[in-house]
């Protein structure tokens, strides 16, 4: 009898404890906005750390995101959900307010990155294998469209790189093997409108879009130069810029592919990594001509402008990846060489740029610097950290 009673009460107890557990995470005391939050990828462990930049604290560790080597993330426009793109083809939706994995689908065999549409309703994922782009409903992660990156006459599929969102509910990406850039209109998710640009150059390795959403640029690995596409005037086609910037010199070995992330622009100047030489290239946007090059410590990987564009921060490929250099934009000179520690993988500015967070993989550390004094502010522990992504990306075209 007593047994029976206890049995009867159990479902009620479970429900009550669930409610309490649920409430504690939405407690009034913890009611907060997400504008100063972000995530940090723990690449080997497959976790995302949920952090906030106002007090430099770690709020939660979200586990079970799969193989996150080379993971990246975008944010929902309400800055509550992070969509994490893992190397193993996993697409994970993380609720950063609750510090919880909401949903995870394995959508491809080997993926590289993703983007969120202008209206926030679509998530696009680019895949190396099988090469192509898949489009998902941002709410449910249900697949809406599959766009195989087929090229040539034999139905070969190319690895896809440099996927970004563009105004007009479009996605733009490039095909590594094919040397093409595709612009895909997604007004009708069931019926993507694809426009292909061929012969953009050999081995595009990444792409970026200007903050106004007008220009898409693919960096080329297989030749010196970049491929420029004016999204306001697609009929003009792809134009090659900075052709032959290596001037026929023997290229240095590249032990890690550079990334084009965001738009390292200051006024009319654009700063991009050279490939196979230890230089940052300076391009004048007015006429797309090279107007300078800055000798740096190694092969640049990320070349990122502080949000006010006064400084450019650069990190480097192996074996120079213990170093970060700061370029002063007005003088185009290196003003500081920092040694955050072994294997600096990524950098992210706070929304208005007073601080920068840097991941140091082999020290299991995040190092935070003041960008004005260039002094270390604090450190946070993280297990083999790689990408750092703050929610302010939610409202930037192409990020």
């Amino acid at each position, binding site marked *: 009898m007593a047994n029976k009673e206890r049995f009867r009460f159990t479902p009620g107890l479970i429900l009550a404890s669930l409610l309490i557990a649920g409430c504690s995470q939405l407690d009034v005391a913890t009611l907060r906005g997400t504008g100063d939050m972000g995530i940090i990828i723990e*690449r*080997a462990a497959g976790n995302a750390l949920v952090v906030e930049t106002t007090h430099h604290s770690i709020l939660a560790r979200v586990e079970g995101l799969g*193989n996150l*080597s*080379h993971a990246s993330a975008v944010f929902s426009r309400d800055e509550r959900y992070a969509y994490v793109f893992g*190397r*193993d083809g996993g697409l994970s939706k993380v609720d950063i307010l609750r510090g919880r994995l909401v949903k995870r689908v394995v959508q491809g065999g*080997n993926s*590289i990155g993703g983007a969120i549409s202008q209206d926030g309703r679509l998530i696009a994922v680019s895949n*190396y*294998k099988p090469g192509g782009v898949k489009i998902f409903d941002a709410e449910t992660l249900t697949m809406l469209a599959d766009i195989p990156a087929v090229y040539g006459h034999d139905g070969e599929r190319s*690895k896809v790189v440099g996927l970004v969102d563009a105004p007009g509910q479009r996605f733009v990406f490039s095909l*590594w093997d094919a040397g093409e850039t595709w612009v895909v209109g997604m007004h009708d998710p069931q019926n993507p409108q694809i426009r292909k640009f061929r012969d953009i150059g050999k*081995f595009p*390795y990444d792409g970026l879009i200007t903050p106004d959403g007008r220009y898409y640029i693919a960096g080329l*690995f*297989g030749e010196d130069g970049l491929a420029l596409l004016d999204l306001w005037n697609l009929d003009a086609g792809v134009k090659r810029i900075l052709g032959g910037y290596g001037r026929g010199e023997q290229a240095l*070995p*590249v*032990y*890690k*592919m550079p990334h084009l992330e965001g738009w390292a622009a200051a006024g009319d100047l654009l700063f991009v990594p050279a490939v196979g030489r230890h230089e940052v290239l300076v391009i004048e946007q007015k006429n797309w001509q090279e107007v300078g090059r800055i000798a740096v410590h190694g092969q640049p990987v990320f070349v990122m402008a502080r949000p006010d564009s006064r400084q450019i921060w650069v990190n480097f490929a*192996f*074996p120079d990846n213990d170093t970060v250099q700061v370029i002063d934009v007005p003088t185009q000179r290196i003003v500081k060489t920092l040694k955050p520690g072994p*294997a600096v993988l990524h950098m992210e500015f706070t929304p208005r740029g007073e601080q920068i967070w840097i991941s140091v*993989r*082999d020290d299991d550390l995040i190092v935070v610097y003041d960008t004005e004094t260039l002094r270390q502010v604090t450190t946070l522990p993280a297990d083999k950290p790689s990408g750092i992504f703050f929610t302010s990306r939610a409202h930037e075209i192409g990020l």
Partner: protein
Amino acid sequence: MQAVFFVVTLFLALLLALLLALSPTPLHAQEKGISPSRQGELIHLLKQDCGSCHGLTLAGGLGPPLLPAELSGKPPEWLRDVILDGIPNTAMPPWRPILNEDEVTWLVKRMLQGIPHGQ
């Protein structure tokens, strides 16, 4: 006398077996003069830095997979030369400025065996 010799031989054999069992790395690697700490660095480099193109688990990325199944049938000497000198007109760089021939030979051997995930 013969009994003593037998006991000593047995003892030495057991000692050798014990050393082999306890040794964290194959003895042939020691013969090449690659210290255990350098071996650790090489595995770290393989996973992290080769891994930036070939994937952290070597299951492939921008570069092809480097798992035993994919590598089997390829001559170890060819694999060694590809690592040392790269492949022109591809993203595979030459590692000769970073690694010497013995180190690459050892790495190739380990790649063909497969690297345990936890290592």
